[in-house]
C-alpha cells in the first residue's frame, strides 16, 4: 500500500482523476506484471494481460467499492480473471517449461546464468501448481507480503493462508525435484 492510497482511490473513483489513477498504476503495475509473468511465462503475453488489467480497472474505476481490502487485491483479482481467460482462449499454448526471462529482469540486480536457470525452473514448477498455491507463493515469497496482507489479497483468513502456503511450498519442492 502506498502513502495516501485512500485519497488517491477516492479521487480516482469519485472524480475520475486520471493523475490519481496514474500514481496507483505506477505503484501496482510492476507487481501485477510479475504476478502475470510468473503465471504465463511469456513477456509479450504478460504485457498484454497487464495492460488489459489496468485498462479494465480504469474503465470500471467508478464501480470500485472499498471493503477493507487494499486496492491491490482488486487489481490481483482482475489479473487472476484475465489469466484464466487467457488460458481458456489459448488452451494448447501454455508454456509449462521454459520461461522467457530475457528482458524482464531488473538491470541492477541482474542474476548470473545459473541463477537465471534456477529461476526458470522454479517458475515452470510454480505454473504446475494450482492457482491458489501459485498466488500464496507469489504473495508471500516473491512480493514478500505479510500473512495478513496475503490474506487480504486472497480474501482468506490468516490461518487459511498459513495452511495454503505450507502445502504450496511442499508441492513446489516436489515439482522441482521431479523436473530435475
Amino acid at each position, binding site marked *: 500500500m502506498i502513502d495516501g492510497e485512500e485519497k488517491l482511490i477516492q479521487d480516482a473513483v469519485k472524480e475520475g482523476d486520471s493523475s490519481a489513477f496514474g500514481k496507483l498504476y505506477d505503484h501496482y503495475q510492476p507487481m501485477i506484471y510479475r504476478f502475470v509473468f*510468473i503465471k504465463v511465462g511469456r513477456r509479450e503475453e504478460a504485457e498484454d494481460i497487464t495492460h488489459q488489467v489496468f485498462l479494465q480497472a480504469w*474503465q470500471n474505476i467508478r464501480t470500485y467499492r472499498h471493503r477493507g481490502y487494499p486496492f491491490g487485491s482488486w487489481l490481483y483479482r482482475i489479473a487472476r480473471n484475465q489469466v484464466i481467460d487467457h488460458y481458456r482462449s489459448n488452451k494448447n499454448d501454455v508454456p509449462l517449461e521454459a520461461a522467457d526471462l530475457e528482458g524482464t529482469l531488473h538491470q541492477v540486480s541482474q542474476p548470473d546464468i545459473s541463477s537465471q536457470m534456477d529461476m526458470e525452473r522454479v517458475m515452470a514448477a510454480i505454473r504446475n501448481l494450482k492457482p491458489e498455491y501459485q498466488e500464496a507463493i507469489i504473495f508471500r*515469497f516473491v512480493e514478500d507480503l505479510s500473512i495478513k496482507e496475503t490474506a487480504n489479497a486472497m480474501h482468506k483468513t490468516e490461518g487459511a493462508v498459513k495452511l495454503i502456503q505450507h502445502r504450496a511450498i511442499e508441492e513446489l519442492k516436489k515439482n522441482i525435484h521431479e523436473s530435475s
Partner: protein
Amino acid sequence: MNLLETLKQLKAIQPDPTFSENSRRSILAFIPTEPISSRRILVRFLAATGSFVLAGALIFIIAGGLSTTNLAPQFSSIDPTALHAEAQAIDTQIELLNVSYTESAASTEPVPMVKISHPIVISGTSSTLAVITASSTPTSTISVDEILQGLSQ
C-alpha cells in the same frame, strides 16, 4: 538450489519501461464513464413503478372514500320508480300543450282552398293519391284535421 532465495530473486522481474509508459498513456487517455449497472436500472424501474402504484392507490382511496361516505347515501335514497313516473308526467304535459296549440290555430285561422288541377304522385308511383276540387272563394271554414282526413281517405 535455495528455493526461498530463488523465489526472492523473482522480484527482479520488471516490465519494460517503454511498454509501461505507452500502456500508461493509452490507459489514461480513456475517460471512464458512469456505469449503468443492472442494479441502477432496477432501482429506476422500481421507483417509476412505485410512483404509478402509489398514485393509483391514492386515486382509489379518494374515489372509494367519497363513494362510501358522501355519495352512496344520496344515491340510495333515490327511488327509480318515482323518477320514471315523473319523467312520464313531463312528457304527457308537453303532448297536451301541442294539442291545445293545434286546436286553437285551426279554429282561428281559415285555410284557403285551392283547386289542385294535377294529380299528386308520391315516391314516383303512378297511382293517384287524391284530387280535390274547390271553388276559388271559400264558402266554409275547414280545419286542417278535416283536410288530412280527407286526404287519407
